[in-house]
């Protein structure tokens, strides 16, 4: 009798859900995409073996609704639940409810998520494991409490959400004067993003690099450290470009970083894939920052330089296969990831929604595109702005950068505005090329407002537009008739029309 195919509920969306769905296929697992009504036609739903509707578009009614996710997993008779990143991926209540239903949560145990997902208790665990820790405060009651506690660690300091991630609910506080406003906005953002408003303060190291180590544990106390990633290129605490290895880490420092990260993962009896984040100062000293108890957005750069599949490793462990075999944590070549987002870099990176009218993805040796959308899909306002990740490998760092620049030049996303040109400008910046990075690199070298460099190809663009229009553009893709059937913001902007004619 053939063994029953195991069933995996994918409780996420976009590129990461698609990436999990595809790996399920490789491993012979049945994938079920649990999706919101707004996402029903996205590639991760279309490519999955089965689909289940969670609820309406807003995340709190779908991807953040624990009850609905668990119900979908039960109804789908899932054996495993993969939470992806963000949303409920680090939520101990989800992990607990899922396992109580007899379904394996592809991630750490709920108790680990409670301990390591909270930035305050995670620091205590790091201290116990002998890992150097960035000084910080406990949970803060209010701005006044923060002012008193902050005086201990000194100003400037970083105000952070205890349940945070992705830079949300985070503010640099230069002096106690800024605390009240920072506290108010950060706690509102933390509440909106994570459902918890708790904040704490920690020491701000400037200049510092953000370097993180990929770990993988078997849940029994065995853990491997799989090398580091450099994630210093950030805008408002959101990673923009990541790479592996770090240009600041040599074999000796790598060994020390990996030993510290592995010690923490062992102390936590960590299960599955996780990331230990460090601040690295100019002297090569590192301090523990936080642990991300899930797969990271930027995991592909580690996969590229190690030649491993971290999602397959997660699923194999969850299926009871024990600790997967990993290659030694010695990077082969270099990998760079560019996060392509639906945002307008010339308008302070405001999110840009709308339908993707045409999409061309670069292909070639050592070029990987992890995307969440296809032509015809709409990028809506409910979720984050990531359209896809471009990961390029090279034998050297320079080659990986050259490949990324060329591939971004061929990536065509027509519809929402994207940051692709900005990413190219950053990759081509001499300081990036030289690897002289810190978390303030973008603030220093690309202070807003950013303007795309002048080019003299306007006449060629007009000629291409004229040719396309003359050759039947009006009746072509996304023509006027289609646009009227699906009105877009651009076609119905009273404000802008009014500006020209005073009609609105």
């Amino acid at each position, binding site marked *: 009798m053939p063994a029953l195919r195991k069933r995996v509920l994918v409780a996420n969306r976009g590129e990461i859900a698609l990436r999990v769905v595809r790996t399920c296929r490789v491993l012979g697992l049945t994938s079920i995409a649990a999706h919101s009504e707004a996402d029903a036609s996205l590639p991760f739903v279309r490519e999955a073996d089965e689909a289940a509707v969670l609820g309406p578009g807003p995340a709190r009614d779908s991807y953040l609704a624990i009850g609905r996710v668990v119900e979908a997993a039960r109804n789908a008779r899932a054996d495993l639940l993969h939470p992806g990143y963000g949303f409920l991926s680090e939520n101990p209540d989800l992990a607990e409810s899922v396992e109580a239903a007899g379904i394996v949560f592809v991630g750490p145990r709920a108790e680990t998520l409670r301990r390591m997902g909270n930035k305050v208790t995670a620091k205590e665990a790091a201290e116990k494991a002998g890992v150097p820790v960035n000084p910080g405060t406990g949970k803060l009651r209010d701005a006044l409490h923060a002012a008193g506690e902050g005086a201990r660690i000194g100003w400037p300091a970083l105000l952070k959400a205890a349940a945070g991630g992705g830079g949300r609910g985070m503010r640099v506080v230069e002096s106690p004067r800024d605390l009240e406003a920072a506290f108010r*906005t950060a706690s509102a953002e933390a509440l909106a*993003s994570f459902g918890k408003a708790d904040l704490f303060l920690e020491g701000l190291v400037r200049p510092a690099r953000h370097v993180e180590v990929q770990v993988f544990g078997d849940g029994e106390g065995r853990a491997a450290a799989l090398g580091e990633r450099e994630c210093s290129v950030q805008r408002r605490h959101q990673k923009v470009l990541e790479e592996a290895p770090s240009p600041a880490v040599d074999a000796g420092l790598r060994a020390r970083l990996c030993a510290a990260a592995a010690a923490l993962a062992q102390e936590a009896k960590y299960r599955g894939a996780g990331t230990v984040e460090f601040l690295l100062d100019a002297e090569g000293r590192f301090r523990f920052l936080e642990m991300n108890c899930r797969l990271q957005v930027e995991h592909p750069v580690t996969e590229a330089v190690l030649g491993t599949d971290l999602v397959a490793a997660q699923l194999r462990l969850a299926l009871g296969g024990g600790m997967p075999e990993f290659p030694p944590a010695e990077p082969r070549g270099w990998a760079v990831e560019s996060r392509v987002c*639906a945002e307008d870099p010339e*308008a*302070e990176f*405001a999110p840009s*929604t709308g*339908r993707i*009218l*045409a999409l061309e993805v670069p292909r070639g040796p050592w070029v990987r595109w992890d995307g969440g959308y296809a032509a015809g899909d709409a990028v809506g*306002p*409910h*979720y984050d702005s990531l359209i896809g990740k471009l990961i390029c490998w090279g034998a050297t760092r320079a080659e990986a950068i050259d490949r990324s620049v060329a591939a971004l*030049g*061929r990536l*065509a*996303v*027509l*519809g929402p*505005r*994207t940051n692709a*040109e900005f990413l*190219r400008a950053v990759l081509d910046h001499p300081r990036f090329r030289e690897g002289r990075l810190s978390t303030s690199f973008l603030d220093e070298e690309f202070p807003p407002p950013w303007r*795309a460099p002048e*080019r003299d*190809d*306007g*006449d*060629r*663009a007009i*000629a*291409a*537009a*004229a*040719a*396309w*229009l*003359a*050759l*039947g*553009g009006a009746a*072509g*893709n*996304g*023509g*006027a008739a*289609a*646009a*009227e059937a699906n009105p877009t*913001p*651009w*076609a*119905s*902007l009273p*404000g*802008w*029309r009014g*500006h*020209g*004619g005073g009609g609105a």
Partner: protein
Amino acid sequence: MTFAGTLGDGDAERAVSASVRGGVLRGTVDGRPLPEAAVERRGAEVLLEAGGVRTRAVVAREGDRLLVHLDGRVHEFEVGDGVRRRPSPRGGRRARASDEPRALSPMTGTVVQVAVKPGESVAAGATLAVVEAMKMQFVVRAPRAVVVRSVSVAAGAAVEIGAVLVEFEDGNPSPDAPTRENAPR
């Protein structure tokens, strides 16, 4: 196989006429001749060759908005029939920052905060409202010193990109007029 109309790129609106016969593009832009080019179109892809220089573009259109991807850059045009003249979104946005009497939502999302009341004087750069989408908050600021005339939205409201948030008139604060930045609270 002809087109006659206008293409606006934010800075200028150009009168364009073009025809393709036998795979050759001929036409004019504001009366000046376009370089004669061999052209081919396959779906969204346009290939041009003029004077030995090849251009490969990916083109898409949504309503009046025409997008041309060329070597990593998306050029935006507004297609007109040559009669109505209106600014392109990009040009409109830049112009708006300096002289529009209202603040518009920069994106489709939810208003999380309205920071001003009608009648209030605020300094240039003061927060008027905060809009959230895609988990990001975007602060809409006063482009210059203004007096708020009306507030069109409330916290919690869903707004489309371009929706009017706050209308105002030029403030001309005398040194002792209270503004949001220095008003006693």
